[in-house]
């Protein structure tokens, strides 16, 4: 521990991953997080930790719900960025021949790309519906089915959203972005269940070898980005007033129980619900595209939401500290909730096995489905990793990709990729990421989350 650290840091990694983690400033950022007032037990780094801004990506911090702080940077600009997995009744053979048509149809129907808007134009009434109901608002308006809500983290609703706490700018930036993918590392993938590691849990999740699935990664778009931007400034004002000094301004925070803290939480809740609506609409567009491209009915598609996880979020949860149950605000910045079987917040359908954890990998080597284990509650405030974690900077990835036809390279591996920008594919190429399998093996071996299945991408759309 260094001078201002209030708690130690704890890193989960293999020897090889640790060597890579030391190559950038991620561990310095973990040290900075341990300075935050009210932090409990330790600041945690998951094996996919990498250099972010303020918090490291793959960082977890639990703050005392009474005395602790809330930090918008500990959630990130993309509030409730997350992943959802939809299984289908199709097998690889059903989509292999019409795969190009399917990916083209998805690309046509799913708005993607920098700043791209969608067909939905949100009125004030719509916003109020989103804030008050979350994903259920989307279902009520025809984007999905009632059953979808059962398997979204917290049923796709975060209470306490207040339109008064949201700036005009956030409303303006969000008005046409519900149901849009965005850019960067966001994607919509057609995957095939390639390998099963745990038969009984896979069965409970409705996954079987050769089955076609859809994996969607997106967040709260410009709406959430603006809310975080607004409140970092609010928090900086609070810190000046209170004389609170931290090693990095990007960690700007305020006591949870302060006007600034409450204001942020009310706006944050609005963005959390917005992101759930976004992913709900995106899944609906995916269902529609499958039916359109393959000439099948929704009944034949059998598109079932396996789960939807948030990996940029702060949640008020009860955790055991020094033998006592205590309410804490768990900041998960690039980290996923991973509750074990029996936990009351695990949807009923999965309570006998544990909560599904979705770990997107790179577009070449695939993604993983895990299940929360008791070790997560014992050691990491019920939290697991969130992805592969970048290994190459974007500039290095662009250099590596120069002169290579990455679209053809991936197509030769049986993966059809469509993207708005060629640069996006170079920056997001498989070589830019750590192997998600190695990241998952660390949390598996640590007893935080167990490996259930591996998904192999066959079609990818990106912004």
């Amino acid at each position, binding site marked *: 521990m260094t001078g201002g650290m209030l708690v130690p840091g704890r890193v989960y990694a293999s020897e090889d991953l640790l060597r890579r983690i030391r190559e950038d400033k991620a561990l310095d950022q973990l040290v900075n997080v341990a300075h935050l007032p009210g932090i409990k037990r330790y600041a945690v780094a998951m094996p996919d930790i990498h*250099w972010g*801004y303020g918090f490291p990506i793959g960082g977890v911090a639990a703050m005392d719900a009474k005395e602790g702080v809330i930090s918008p940077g500990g959630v990130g600009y993309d509030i409730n960025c997350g992943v959802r997995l939809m299984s289908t009744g199709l097998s690889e053979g059903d989509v292999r021949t019409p795969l190009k048509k399917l990916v083209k149809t998805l690309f046509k129907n799913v708005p993607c790309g920098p700043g791209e808007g969608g067909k939905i134009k949100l009125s004030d009434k719509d916003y109020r519906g989103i804030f008050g109901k979350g994903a259920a608002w989307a279902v009520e308006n025809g984007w999905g089915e009632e059953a979808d809500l059962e398997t979204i983290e917290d049923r796709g609703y975060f209470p306490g959203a207040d339109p008064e706490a949201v700036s005009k700018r956030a409303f303006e930036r969000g008005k046409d972005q519900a149901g849009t993918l965005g*850019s*960067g590392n966001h994607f919509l993938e057609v995957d095939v269940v390639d390998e099963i590691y745990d038969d009984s849990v896979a069965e409970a999740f409705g996954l079987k070898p050769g089955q076609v699935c859809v994996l969607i990664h997106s967040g709260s778009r410009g709406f959430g980005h603006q809310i*975080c931007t607004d409140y970092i*400034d609010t928090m*900086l004002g609070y810190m000046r007033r209170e004389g609170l000094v931290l090693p*990095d301004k990007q960690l700007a925070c305020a006591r949870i129980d302060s006007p600034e803290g409450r204001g942020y939480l009310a706006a944050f809740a609005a963005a959390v619900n917005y992101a759930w609506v976004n992913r709900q609409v995106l899944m609906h567009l995916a269902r529609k595209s499958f039916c359109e491209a393959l000439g099948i009915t929704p009944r034949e598609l059998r598109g079932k939401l396996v789960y939807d996880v948030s990996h940029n979020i702060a949640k008020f949860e009860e955790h055991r500290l020094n033998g006592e149950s205590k309410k804490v605000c768990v900041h998960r910045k690039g980290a996923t909730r991973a509750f074990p079987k029996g936990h009351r917040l695990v949807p009923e359908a999965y309570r006998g096995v544990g909560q599904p954890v979705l770990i997107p990998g790179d577009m070449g080597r695939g993604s993983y489905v895990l299940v929360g284990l008791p070790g997560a509650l014992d050691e990491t405030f019920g939290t697991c990793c969130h992805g592969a974690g*970048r290994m190459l900077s974007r500039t290095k990835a662009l250099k590596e990709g120069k002169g290579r036809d990455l679209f053809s390279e991936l197509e030769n591996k049986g993966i059809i990729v469509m993207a708005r920008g060629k640069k996006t594919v170079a920056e997001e190429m498989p070589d830019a990421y750590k192997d998600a399998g190695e990241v998952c093996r660390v949390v598996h071996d640590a007893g935080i989350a167990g490996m259930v299945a591996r998904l192999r991408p066959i079609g990818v759309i990106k912004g």
Partner: protein
Amino acid sequence: MLDCLVVSYEILEHTADVRIRASGNDLAGLLRGAVRGMACLIAVTNYVEGWESVAVEASGETPEELLVHLLGEVLYVHYTRRIIFSDAGVEVTDDGALRAKCTLHGEAYDPARHELGYDIKAVTYHDLKIERAGDRLSAEIVFDV
């Protein structure tokens, strides 16, 4: 040396996000370099004409805050009006609080002619420090993308 003849920004390494170093002869020059750097991240600036002018203003308690706020204003104009930029003129005043008046030069984004680059989510304060090196001011800025 004329400011326009000096390279006013460069793109640096960062694992997950995008980092640039902007510089200028004074604070106004540094802000201009930062706006140009960000414009280059948003779009392929070689093909952007300066047909439209948009005025934005920002203030800040510190030069760093002024920089983040000004870039935030530019980002807001880009996202809500779908304009991309080629250059900017910046004036800075200090009447107790630092203020920047900025005229952005650019044109409406046209997918037929322009390729967008990064979907910048925000301008961060991470490790942000305006420093003087010789006769120039410079700052490293991390953008969340």
